[in-house]
């Protein structure tokens, strides 16, 4: 199976891969939501984390992925949905997310009042993987819905309708990042309904694989510089010299993509990384780091073998 090949490549326990296959065979995906089974932008690298996550899901548990910026929380969540071949539902939490959005509210269709199903409802019904993005931003109203959904009861009571039970294959994967403005600590009752995976920061090895996957025709030397740049910035942020604004893997990948169509690498990086710092002083520090890695006169041909 193609979806599982990268697991084999990473030496993930063979027994687990077998179990995943069995899971996939046991639960077929409803045709209606087949389009929700999406191939993630990039595979997740990190054997240990994958094993932890897969084991948790096989045992019917929900996962909470915590970690700093750019540790691949969402990538892992998307990957898991793909590995287990389940439709994924992305639910972003913000101050105005309420129970109505999650379970559903009344609406009017074909001259009659009907339930407009919320994302959690759909996820429960079709046995999807619900990715609860920034779950620590959830307000009490939304949290109360999660409590019943996530624990052993595995059921949702929809006011005015009926109680529905969660599909056996339904799982929820929360992601959270401490340190963003507005985020708060998750309450204990909610945390106890998850298995928590603390995402490790990127290493040269994992970044190397990501870059290789994203830019197969990238020159090794150039890729090494980009990876080095990311590591430099990560270390700098860890030491508190800069904020995490510049630690932006998405931004860096996007910048390298723009180089593909001819933009100079220096300009691309200033778009993808440097300009993300709004503090002028921090910008200079980041710029200095970039300067030691990416010469101004580099062009597309310094980065890609063929274009």
């Amino acid at each position, binding site marked *: 199976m193609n979806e599982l090949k990268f697991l084999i490549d990473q030496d993930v326990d063979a027994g687990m891969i077998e179990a995943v296959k069995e899971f996939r065979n046991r639960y077929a995906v409803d045709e209606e939501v087949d389009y929700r089974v999406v191939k993630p932008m990039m595979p997740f690298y990190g054997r240990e984390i994958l094993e932890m996550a897969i084991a948790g899901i096989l045992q019917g548990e929900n996962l909470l992925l915590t970690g700093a910026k750019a540790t691949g929380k969402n990538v892992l969540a998307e990957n898991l949905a793909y590995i287990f071949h389940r439709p994924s539902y992305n639910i972003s939490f913000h*101050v105005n997310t309420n129970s109505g959005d999650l379970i559903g*509210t009344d*609406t009017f269709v074909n001259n009659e009042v009907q339930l407009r199903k919320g994302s959690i409802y759909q996820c429960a019904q079709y046995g999807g993987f619900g990715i609860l993005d920034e779950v620590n931003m959830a307000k009490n109203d939304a949290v109360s819905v999660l409590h019943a959904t996530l624990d052993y009861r595995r059921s949702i009571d929809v006011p005015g309708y009926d109680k529905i039970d969660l599909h056996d294959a339904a799982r929820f994967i929360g992601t959270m990042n401490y340190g963003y403005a507005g985020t708060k600590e998750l309450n204990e009752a909610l945390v106890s309904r998850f298995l928590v995976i603390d995402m490790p920061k990127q290493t040269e090895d994992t970044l190397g694989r990501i870059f290789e996957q994203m830019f197969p025709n990238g020159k090794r030397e150039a890729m090494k510089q980009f990876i080095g740049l990311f590591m430099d910035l990560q*270390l700098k942020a860890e030491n508190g010299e*800069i904020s995490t604004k510049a630690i932006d893997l998405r931004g860096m990948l996007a910048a390298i993509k723009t180089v593909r169509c001819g933009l100079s690498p220096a300009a691309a990086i200033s778009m993808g990384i440097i300009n993300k710092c709004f503090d002028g002083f921090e910008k200079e*520090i980041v710029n*200095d*780091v970039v*300067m*030691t890695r990416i010469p101004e006169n580099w062009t597309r041909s310094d980065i890609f073998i063929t274009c």
Partner: protein
Amino acid sequence: MEEYQLEIENRIKNLIWTVCGDYELEAKPDVEGFLRSKYIALYDGIKQGAFAKYFDKEELSMYLIKKLFIHGDEGSLMYLTQMCIQEAVENRIAKERSGVAAIRQKACRDILEFNFDQMVKSPLGQLKIAVLKEKVEGSYMVSKEIRKKMDMLYQLRDVTMTREIVEHVDYLYNLWIEPDYEQLYGTLEQVLAVTMEELTEYSWKDFLSEDMYEDALEAYLEKVGNDMTNSQAADADEDEKEDSGDSKRKKVTVIDEEMLKKVYSYVELNFGKTYLSPLEEKRMNFQLCKGLHSDCGLYFTDGILQNPVTRNYQYEYARKQKDKNKYAYYDHHRIVKQNINILTEILKKAIVMRNDVSDILSDRGSLIPSKLWKAGRTSDAKLFQKEDKSDDQDFVVDVLIDASGSQRPRQEKVVLQAYIIMQALSNARIPHRTMSFCTFWDHTIMQRYREYDDDKAANERIFEFTTSSNNRDGLAIRAAASSLMERGEEKKILILLSDGRPYDVILNRPNARNPQPYQGAYAIKDTGFEVRRLRNAGVSVLGVFAGEEKDLEAEKKIFGKDFAYIRDIANFSKIVGRYLKKQLEDNG
């Protein structure tokens, strides 16, 4: 200008850390050099970082010290070392970081441009010109003699051990600068055989300025360590040895640093440890201690009772004061409770009025039966009602209390007033923070009692309030406002409990920072300015005046119309409540 220099210093330091990867490394960036040529300074930073990464800085500086101890010539030795280091690290770092080569190019060009006149005068300088030219232009025609020297220098490109650099430097020094050194003073082995005891006993007076003291050796070691990667200082030295020697030596300002540290640890002893990380603290100071308040520092703490360094006199005193405050509370228990209730009531009412959640018609939500006739008759499907909570209903309050010595007589009263406000705000679920401020030496101490989103229980900590020293109201308001402005709530209120007497005058202390005196009309003007600045930024500022009647005028100047004069604590909550209510309603 000074702020700018600090920023540059930090910038170059960061570059050094980036290159060597060790954020513990002590680095002394060349800020003046940066102002002359950005690229030279940046490239020096890179070299410094790279050298620390690949080699043992200590070992080389130790050798240099020993060589100088045995009559080596400081200027030429440093010059030579600097050139050797450049060769030793440059290719390696350029290989690791692709951008370095371009920076080097620019730096070399700048050095040639700025320092050419000085370099051309000495044989070593001429050698350096040749080396730099070759770096810039790729190849450079020189006499056979110089080419030979260059080749000897280039041998350093392959070294991997610090010891090899030491050997090279020593060999070249003896060859080019003092050919009879070995005969006169001894070989490399003999130089390295100098013991620490001998070095420590030596006064190093000739190498250091007068204000240096005991650990002179260490300071000099540090200086040597820094100078050896600095290409500009060495050039300047060569030429203007006499006067540049002086100015350069002044850079070693160990005593100042020591003094600053002493003041800082004294502040720690008096007010407890800070809750900010060093970086956050640095940043706060950068941003806030400007203009009038430059040379001041801000110190954020949770108070000595929360985070003491040791159990000292101040700790005991704070504990006693806490008990006193508590007793005052017990004595006035009933009045305080009543006040809290009144204020809570006022706030709650005002909030209820505002919290009318607006309902909007929507195509989902809860059904409105009276609209059902539309079904099937019109395409308008908005038969539902949906709650629309707008975000701009939010309030946040900052309570800032003057904790200077002049408040001491009414310390307990101030505590009770603050407590009433805090409890009432907590009851009304309005996020609020409480801080007090006083100025001790050059530090303005911001003591925090509760954070915005803390639980009601945290309000008890206000009883830890003590007063001492001076007050720099303007800076304190600025500091409190900076975090208040970062809050997401639309409506921000700052309540300032003070006695209308900003006062911070300190005696001139040798070797410490001396901020400008802050008192009288001048200080009132500055405080008033900060208040108006905040009001312009949309923050409602309420002054609660707790001082004596004669200072009322000053209070008026600071706060304009929005201030409350509390004669009797019994009326406290009514007056403050009226004001807060107005603020809550105004924005409806």
